[in-house]
């Protein structure tokens, strides 16, 4: 199959921006509305996958992307672990302590460290699923 028609390419370019934005919304409002790090991360990965499917593989120089995405994934989860262990080292000597102030429940900056966990897990899930998809796609293209 030569590749998608230009209509699909144009429409997917527009939509994937929206999907990416929606994923970020889900991550940042993880502690207020349903969803959270995992759901938002998958949605962001979905937006990148949509772009790659629509525009074909040679559109991106994908060999390098795969290394970066697994790099980003390692970084995402490393910060998640550091913050979790931070509770152990810094304040209350207890693993997974919620040491930031809670703020008033209901508005965006509340629930202490949970929004940060959401963001780190979101980065990790998005980069991880992207690496898996790239590994499958590149493997097929190479030989």
């Amino acid at each position, binding site marked *: 199959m030569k590749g998608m028609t230009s209509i699909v390419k144009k429409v997917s370019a527009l939509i994937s921006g929206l999907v990416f934005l929606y994923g970020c919304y889900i991550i940042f409002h993880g502690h207020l*509305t*349903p969803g959270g790090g*995992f759901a938002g991360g998958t949605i962001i990965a979905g937006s990148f996958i949509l772009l790659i499917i629509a525009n074909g593989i040679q559109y991106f120089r994908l060999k390098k992307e795969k290394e970066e995405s697994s790099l980003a994934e390692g970084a995402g989860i490393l910060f998640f672990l550091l913050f979790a262990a931070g509770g152990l080292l810094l304040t209350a000597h207890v693993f997974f302590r919620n040491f930031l102030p809670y703020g008033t*429940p*209901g508005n965006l900056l509340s629930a202490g460290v949970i929004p940060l966990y959401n963001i780190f897990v979101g980065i990790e899930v998005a980069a991880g699923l992207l690496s898996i998809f790239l*590994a*499958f796609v590149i*493997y097929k293209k190479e030989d």
Partner: protein
Amino acid sequence: MLNYILCFVLFLVGLYGVLTRKNIIKIIIGLCIMEYSLNLFFIMIGYIKGGVAPIVDLSSSQNVKYVDPLPQAIVLTAIVIGLATTALLLAIAIKLYKKYKTFDIDKINNLKG
């Protein structure tokens, strides 16, 4: 009680698929169906009749009955475990297809004993 039985039957259909199908992709599908039935089983256990989704809205009156949130946290983990095992199984399936040029498990029986 009927819902629990049907969920267990779905689990058995998945197990049947894994044990009797010859095609690797169908074995993977059978395994995923077993994952899904267990996720549903866990949530059905935590459901309370007349309960509301576990999102606390502060404006409401106090005596609102919530569905049990613990199984939902557990199934969130179980879904991602299912995705992880499926991705690994499919990676092995691709490599097996590259080496044996077939998805049929009988023809792949290279190891003896």
